[in-house]
């Protein structure tokens, strides 16, 4: 059988891991979140909003790509959490993701933290 050549532009598979903490949900994102994957991200985040937790922390350290529909999933989650008096915080974006957040000015909606522990602790302030 001929070997399948791996494309140099192949995206890292997208993965979402959800951990429940006492009064928060921690979502750890990994890989690339392109246009055909972002609906999955949106579904996961909105499901968490339905749980009524006061805080959602999204760890972006492993995320290397996201497009505007993925950013829109963050905004939809922000709106749904806010309706329930909850908040959404972002953690450790890679430089290119940070630039995206700044370019879109979404840093006005999302406080960005340097560590998951800091983001979780801020909820108890």
């Amino acid at each position, binding site marked *: 059988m001929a070997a399948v050549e791996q*494309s140099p532009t192949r995206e890292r598979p997208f993965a979402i891991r959800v951990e429940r903490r006492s009064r928060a949900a921690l979502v750890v994102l990994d890989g690339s979140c*392109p246009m055909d994957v972002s609906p999955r991200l949106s579904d996961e985040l909105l499901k968490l909003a339905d749980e009524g937790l006061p805080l959602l922390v999204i760890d972006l350290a492993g995320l290397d790509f996201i497009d505007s*529909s993925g950013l829109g*999933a963050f905004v939809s989650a922000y709106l749904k959490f806010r309706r329930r008096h909850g908040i959404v915080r972002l953690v450790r974006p890679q430089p*290119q993701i940070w630039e995206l957040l700044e370019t879109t*000015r*979404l840093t006005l909606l999302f406080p960005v933290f340097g560590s998951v522990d800091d983001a979780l602790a801020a909820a108890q302030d």
Partner: protein
Amino acid sequence: MDVMHDPNLDGPLNELVVGSNLTAAKAPEQAILGEVQRCGYGEEAVFAIKLSLEEAMTNAVRHGNRNDHSKSIRVRYAVSPRRVLIMVADEGPGFAPEAVPDPTEPEYIERPNGRGIMLIRAYMTSVSYNDRGNEVRMLKENDQWRP
């Protein structure tokens, strides 16, 4: 402007026509990014081109062709070590880009959608549309290119 007379066209013009859905829309991206990487573009330029292509293809599928899977998207592109020229056309009636609100303005910042066009403008060297408004032309200069 006829693309064949575009002064920024300095490589062979390729054309791909794909189905109007988000899965089929990945094929031009793979082809273009493969050439971009072979031409030695830096990580930031690759990210910018990938992002802009994703935004343009998403707009073509959702807004231009209105999720009609019987329609097609035509992608024309030329990649050289100096610059990348990409044109994405859908079968829709077109739109007026200047009428799209700035998503960074306070009254629009909380909208989940509407950031794609702004991101293309922010990440590409130049962006324009045909008269009908159903084809976006995106140019990315390679900052690292030296003659």
